[in-house]
């Protein structure tokens, strides 16, 4: 078993754990951050599987744009709740 294999298994295990935590966390903002870290780790996975194009897209969209949009949506949601 080479070093790359060991890293792959570690990344895969972490991905499953983080995805499970993202689904089961009570706080929504923590859930969004965990989702972002899932994307970031899957970028490592894609690079190890020699797919740099997919990794680039995932890095930009998954951990950049989607996280930002989720955070802004959450901010506006809490604002509405406070004003009620």
């Amino acid at each position, binding site marked *: 078993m080479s070093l790359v294999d060991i890293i792959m298994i570690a990344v895969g295990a972490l991905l499953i754990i983080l995805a499970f935590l993202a689904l089961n966390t009570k706080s929504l903002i923590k859930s969004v951050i965990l989702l972002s870290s899932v994307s970031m780790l899957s970028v490592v996975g894609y690079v190890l599987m020699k797919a740099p194009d997919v*990794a680039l897209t995932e890095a930009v*969209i998954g951990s*950049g*744009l989607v996280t930002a949009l989720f955070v802004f949506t959450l901010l506006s949601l809490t604002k509405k709740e406070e004003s009620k």
Partner: protein
Amino acid sequence: MKNFLALVLVLLLSAGIIITLQNNDLFPVFGEAQVVNRVSDHYITKGSTQPIIWGETTDAEDGAANIVTSIVVNYRSFDTLGEVTVLFVSAMGVALLLSSGRTSKRLALNFKPNFMLRVGSRALFGIILMTGVYIILHGHLTPGGGFPGGVMIASSVLLLYLADDEFRSKIKGFKVLEGVAGSLYVIVVLLGLILATYFLQNFLPTGTVGDLFSAGILPIVYILIGLKVGSEISGLIDNFLTEEEAA
């Protein structure tokens, strides 16, 4: 109990996926597939019997050094046209749901951007924008292309939104740019039908593999896709960050 059932379901499904993808006729072991019998071999050799060498091969069937680009924008360009349409429809759906028309104002964030955030975002804006443009322009040479590059441009716009409380992008200009870039893409692929024989055909000379000016219409199409995606997602961000003015 519910969690346990979900876990069992996930394990069963993953076992099913692993068993179906393991070494049968359709899915051989990684690296042992007979690519000669498949169409993907044609995409890699670009239809020639000579090996493709960076900076030496000229006038190949497809001049892109990045195989992914040569498939996405040349051999399977029709799929990309569909993908652009899907993105357009979803952006339109967001605009229909969220944009309120005449009286919209910036969503007030409940934190004031401090000095570091303002200056840092302004400094990063240029770097991210230039990286996006670089990725779009070099889409046929290095990993990346129109879609990630366009989203990078949109992220730089998002940074400006973060840095400035009052910032509104010129949303009308983005709408015009998006429409023009999308129409130009269709016009470029229609030119293939007029100047050559079929829809989406690469009618320009493909040049030397690895040159910036190579691969015929691929860079042109990727620039148009990048402009379209960038303006589309910038508009989407603006839709998310505005709200109806309280009457």
